């Protein structure tokens, strides 16, 4: 039996299709830079990448170019970005159905995600997963998930593996306010707490689960208070302030790395759009004032203001970042459209890693 670490197969996913002559990793899908100024500019760029990607795919959906359930992260960019600002490339994140931002913040290539949404072979999942299952194992992004709350136990498993291997890696588990009332959430939190696992639980409280406001689903509006029931630290943060998010996560992650166990962080935020693009009912019944108030707390101008105010960046620099991001979005669309569709029979692949010669699928 081989004792060494099994290499998880990723080769297949990076095999190029027609568009594959270009370099494998695009310029901006890179680890978080080390310097303070660079890190801040990375945050700005990352939030913009998420914003522009998710705004653009709504249009593409409207044009009939991409199909399926697309959950927009617009408005919540500061959470994924602030969280990933202090993660290393060898750390892990476990995502939700609203996973585009998590992937981009973890260093994902926009064009390979775009190709996945187009259902093309150069997509991260070769067109088999789509938006709701966007995954990049090689980046430590262990998967978006179509099942609310399902990532919580999975994150404890990643934490268990890290614990058994004895490394100082960490896991961040994202989930929504809707997930805190489902059984496996409780099971996973209790397990992570009991086993003192290196997992930071980040609740993206955007006040709604699908169409329904949180007050109809739980009596306690402050979800971080639940941490006490598991005997772990519970913190609350302004989820529209990327610097504040980065600070609390840095502390939580540092605690996990040094064996201090899990932390529960509630990031209070808001999604600007309905639950999913293909779901008109989700826009019904929201208060215009509420939406306007939250748009006034847009995390991206907030960071821009900070950068300009402190003389960390010039308006010119921020503009050119925006231009580059817009170019990246258009280039990713071109990449996706140039990527071939998989032959339909590819639907029969990847069900099992191994079947004996005598077995039929």
């Amino acid at each position, binding site marked *: *039996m081989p*004792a060494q*670490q*099994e290499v*998880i*197969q*990723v080769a*297949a*996913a990076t095999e190029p299709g027609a568009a594959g002559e270009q370099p494998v990793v695009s310029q901006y899908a890179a680890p978080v830079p080390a310097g303070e100024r660079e890190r801040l500019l990375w945050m700005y760029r990352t939030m913009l990448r998420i914003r522009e990607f998710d705004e653009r795919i709504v249009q593409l959906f409207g044009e009939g170019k991409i199909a399926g359930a697309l959950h927009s992260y617009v408005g919540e960019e500061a959470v994924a970005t602030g969280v990933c600002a202090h993660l290393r490339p060898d750390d892990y994140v*476990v995502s939700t159905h609203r996973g585009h931002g998590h992937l981009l913040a973890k260093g994902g290539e926009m064009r390979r995600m775009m190709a996945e949404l187009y259902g093309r072979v150069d*997509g*991260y*999942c*070769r*067109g*088999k*997963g789509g938006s709701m*299952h966007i*995954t990049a*194992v090689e980046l430590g992004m*262990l*998967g978006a*998930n*179509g*099942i609310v709350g*399902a990532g*919580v*136990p*999975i994150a*404890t*498993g*990643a*934490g*268990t*593996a*890290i*614990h*058994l*291997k004895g490394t100082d890696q960490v896991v961040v588990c994202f989930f929504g306010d809707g997930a805190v009332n489902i*059984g*496996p959430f*409780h*099971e*996973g939190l*209790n*397990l992570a707490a*009991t*086993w003192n696992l290196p997992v930071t639980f980040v609740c993206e409280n955007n006040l709604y689960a699908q169409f329904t406001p949180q007050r109809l689903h739980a009596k306690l509006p402050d979800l971080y208070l639940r941490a006490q029931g598991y005997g772990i630290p519970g913190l609350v943060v302004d989820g529209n302030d990327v610097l504040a998010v980065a600070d609390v996560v840095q502390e939580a992650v540092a605690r996990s790395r040094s064996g201090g166990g899990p932390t529960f962080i509630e990031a209070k935020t808001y999604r600007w759009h309905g639950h999913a693009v293909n779901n008109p009912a989700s826009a019904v019944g929201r208060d215009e004032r509420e939406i306007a108030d939250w748009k006034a707390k847009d995390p991206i101008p907030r960071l821009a203001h900070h950068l300009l105010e402190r003389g960390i960046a010039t308006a010119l620099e921020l503009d050119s970042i925006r231009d580059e991001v817009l170019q990246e979005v258009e280039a990713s669309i071109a990449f996706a459209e140039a990527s071939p569709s998989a032959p339909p029979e590819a639907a029969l*692949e*990847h*069900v*099992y*890693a*191994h*079947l*004996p010669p*005598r*077995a*039929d*699928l």
Partner: protein
Amino acid sequence: MRELLLREALNEALHEEMDADPRVFLLGEDILDPWGGTFRVTEGLSTRFGTERVRETPIPEAAIVGCALGAALLGMRPVAEIMLLDFTAMAMDQIVNQAAKLRYMTGGQASVPIVIRTAGGAGRASAAQHSQSLEAWFTHVPGLKVVMPSTPYDAKGLLKAAIRDPDPVIFIEHKMTYGVRGPVPEGDYTVPLGVADVKRPGTDITVIATSRQVLRALEAAERVAREDGYDVEVVDPRTLYPLDTRTILASIKKTHRAVVVHEAPKRGGWGGELLSTIVEGAFDYLDAPIVRVAAPNTPIPFAPEMERYIVPDVAEIVAGIRQVMA
């Protein structure tokens, strides 16, 4: 050859695999010493390998499977124990929507080499929530492999193969077979997944049975040999998926007759799937309609008399054989 109880054979497989591969670890409820598991399959393992690699969980079936899965994504080889097959109902999302589909949904990026060991079957007056045979739930889900050993030899070899397998495996032990004794060679061997075993060669009729019913089918074969002079071939698929259809069809092409036996209720049972496979692959060879021997479509009752009535026994298999031979 040395003889072991089936429970001991499983225990030995776990010892050997944990010894050979540091990625293998166990998690489940009440699996630590001095208890060593509800059916004592994990006896001695926490003492030998420590409580890091033999991990006592609270009672969260979904999290047990999810945790195994998450660890597998990072290259570990977890063996999760779900105390009873009935309790997998609590973990169905993690088994069916997560473990079974991750490789597929990620276009081959993710590997989920987990084994879920669990105990099924009636026979201990444990009533309707602790006695079921739910294997058909899992054979219906692409991405899962389903194993049901019937002998100590197979149990050890199949468990070792399951642990080394790159895909998620549901390993269903029958709680009434833990005390079955049989020959088990010393040392390392595997029984590959997807290879059926002809447990008794014969020429007149093929009985395909699973799990504990293999043992009853063998008894029934002896009885009809004595009383009717029929020469029965008993085939144990050992893994319901991947299924060794070749061995099963070859047997039927030889005997031209078949009885399918399992402990699960007949309706929607795995036997119906097997029967269709036989009809698709060997219809022209059949000399008589196939008979299914299975439980009636009821929950499992508590009272031992009623429980014995529900679970197929040797007499019912004998009757099934006679019906097909008539």
